[in-house]
């Protein structure tokens, strides 16, 4: 009961404290919108102004976001690995994995084969669609991150498809980890190119060049890094479950 009481008090207190923010009813300030409408496409080269901000004006935040994702993937996978390594040494109260009945095992194998046949084909298609979303983010909705997530689901499908058969090298956990850390390193190199050319950290590095090319490069690198990272996480979760 004290938990319920605490929850009620927390909710009431939060409602009181945040009420002025929800009651706020002033006209939306148009400074940023007006500026971007006038100059955004010229300065960044992207017709999609959200992409212009995400990978141009505020690419620094996006870098932080990819770092958060990197930490989450590294941390979660590390915990899963530590969990399986430490499990037998756990003192007291360690639950025993419930053994699956043979019938359920057979049924699930049957199902897995069906999924494998379908998803192996589907995975390739999804991967290509992901690449499209990734590379055309500057003109249409989408971009590196969204494309990366689509790529990740393609990877998951490929991993499902390679159940039973020889696993595709692309979706091996080790390779995905390699691709992710390489993607992160390339992202940092791309960010630092501006330092070398004197335009500053995270600035489009080429003098006089079309800034949109920098956004496309960032989109591609982020997409590959995110796709590999999330794919790695999902593949690790799927394989742990199967183990």
């Amino acid at each position, binding site marked *: 009961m004290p938990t319920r009481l605490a929850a009620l008090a927390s909710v009431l207190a939060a409602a009181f404290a945040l009420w002025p923010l929800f009651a706020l009813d002033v006209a939306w*300030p148009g400074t940023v919108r007006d500026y971007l409408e006038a100059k955004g496409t010229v300065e960044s080269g992207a017709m999609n102004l959200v992409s212009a901000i995400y990978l141009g*004006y505020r690419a*620094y935040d996006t870098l932080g976001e990819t770092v958060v994702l990197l*930490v989450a993937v590294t*941390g979660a996978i590390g915990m899963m690995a530590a969990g399986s390594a430490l499990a037998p040494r756990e003192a007291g109260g360690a639950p025993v994995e419930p053994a699956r009945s043979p019938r359920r095992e057979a049924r699930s194998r049957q199902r897995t084969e069906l999924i494998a046949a379908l998803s192996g084909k589907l995975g390739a298609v999804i991967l290509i669609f992901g690449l499209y979303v990734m590379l055309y983010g500057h003109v249409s909705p989408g971009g590196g991150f969204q494309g990366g997530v689509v790529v990740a689901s393609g990877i998951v499908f490929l991993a499902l498809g390679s159940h039973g058969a020889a696993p595709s090298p692309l979706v091996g956990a080790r390779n995905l980890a390699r691709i992710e850390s390489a993607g992160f390193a390339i992202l940092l190199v791309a960010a630092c190119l501006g330092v070398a050319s004197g335009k500053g950290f*995270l600035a489009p590095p080429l003098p006089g060049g079309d800034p949109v090319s920098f956004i496309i490069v960032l989109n591609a690198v982020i997409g590959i890094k995110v796709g590999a990272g999330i794919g790695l996480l999902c593949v690790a979760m799927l394989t742990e479950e199967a183990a």
Partner: protein
Amino acid sequence: MGMTDLALAPAILPLVGAALALAGKTARPASARTLERLGAFVGLALPWLPLVLLAPSILQGGAVEGFVGGWAPSVGVAFRFDGMAWLVNLLGFAVAGPAWVHARGSGPRGSAFTALYLVQASALAATSMAADLFNLFVCLEVLGMASYVLVTESGKPGAYLASFSYLMVSAAAMVFFLLGVYGLYRLTGALEYGAVARGLSALPDSGGHAALASVAAIAAAIALRTAVMPLYGWLPEAHALAPHAVSAVLSGVLIKTPLFALTRILVLLPGGGETGAILGAAGAIAAPIGVVIALSQTDAKRLLAYHSISQIGYVVAAWGAGVALIAADPDGAGASAGAVLVAAAYLHALAHALFKGLLFLSVGTVTDVAAERDVYRLRGAGRALRRAGERLPVTTLAFAVGALSIMAIPPFNGYASKAALSAALKGRWQYWTLLAASVGTVASFIKLSLVFRRPKPAASTETFSEEAPPAVADTATEAPESGAEKVPISAKLATATLAAACLAGGLAAPRLYRVVATALGAAPGATDAWSAALYAPAELLKTAGLAAGGLALFALARTAPGKALASAIRNRPRGFHGLFLALCLGMAALTAWLIR
């Protein structure tokens, strides 16, 4: 490479180091170790270079300002590398480097650990120079994510629970932070601190309740990350159960960085001064309460963790009073007086980072070699260290330096920084609560020092024979190899470095204080009177009095009623929901106070 890139370098270099360390994760073990070391060098040693290069201009009160990537002011991400950012970086890298070296011996090791550790260092630097509300949000999230994972690296189940609580309450607080960003952006259409302040002052009622509620939400979120008194519940377990090196960084650096980053917001926005004053008052109350709880603990690292709450109280007390003065009078004499207070707060933050880092590392070494963390059961720590092959008593001496520093015994840095706090807060009520807390600090470190006492002849067989079996979870992860009971050379190196820094910080305190005050914008010569009186007989007499009081309090705590009280405090109910209740009530109280 311009000044802008140089200023960003302390945040970028650790990320590069993290990328290097990560590359080792999938490499062969030998090259993985090389990459890990290279990454740590790039991320923890190289950032000193830009700091040194920037020092001449920054420490005169200069600042490097700009927008990352050189984008337009209204949309780009602003950063500001000023005196405060420089000082916070100094604090961060001074502890992060030695702590990483300590981890080479005491664990954890490995590419993933080093990468996360470097990400944390990068986020610390980035937080210190953020000048954009949403960028601060991102930096705090990176900082948080890295620390949630690092806490669990010790592998103890309790650490997972601590990390989960920390993650949950801090993620909820960050949603409140985001809502505060919403309110301020909605009102002003800007995210850069200066532009937000200008936008608010252009509004007829400078934003009214919504602006104040936004400031309160942001301040509450950061107060939680700083573990200011009512919002401290997540800290003790997380800091006590993390690996020693991580504890040192968490306690020494991680809780202070968001606080100092908040300064820039509070001195500009409406309600900022009052928020500072309230947080300062909470800190001044937290100092004695935290120390009482610390005194009641039996676990060595938990005792240190509660001390962090008390010590952060000292820092926040002076910081809050200073922020209130600066916000009330940003261009006049108040700003200089406020800067002196903030400088005193920083001086203590730096001192605390060094001696608390030192204490966590040396106590960690002691509890590892003795395989016992209970202060009452652990005896003869010096002998255990000797048995572990320590000829020169480096760890014992390091612990002594740390304990004398935190007890404010001259000539160590804790004495100087507490003297700076007392001088800056003289005539305010906070002065007295901090004084009371100092008595308790002395008492609790007398208690902790007893682990070095010679074991009683009668009890010796009992304590030594019991050394191996207790605390299964501890030994499972901390003694993975046969050489582990030896004190590793890296641990000695790390503690010796920090001990030297504690001594140097005490000896050079007058000069250091002057530099810090100037960098933070105080009038020249504002600290001269303090420097002259640092070792005056009255001050030394006060220290002797505090030490005597501490001894008396310690004796009092050893009596039967004292022990009963300690046990009651130690076993007070602490629920998960209490964290959220404190957060929400704290935020609501702050909002109510601001809009009254």
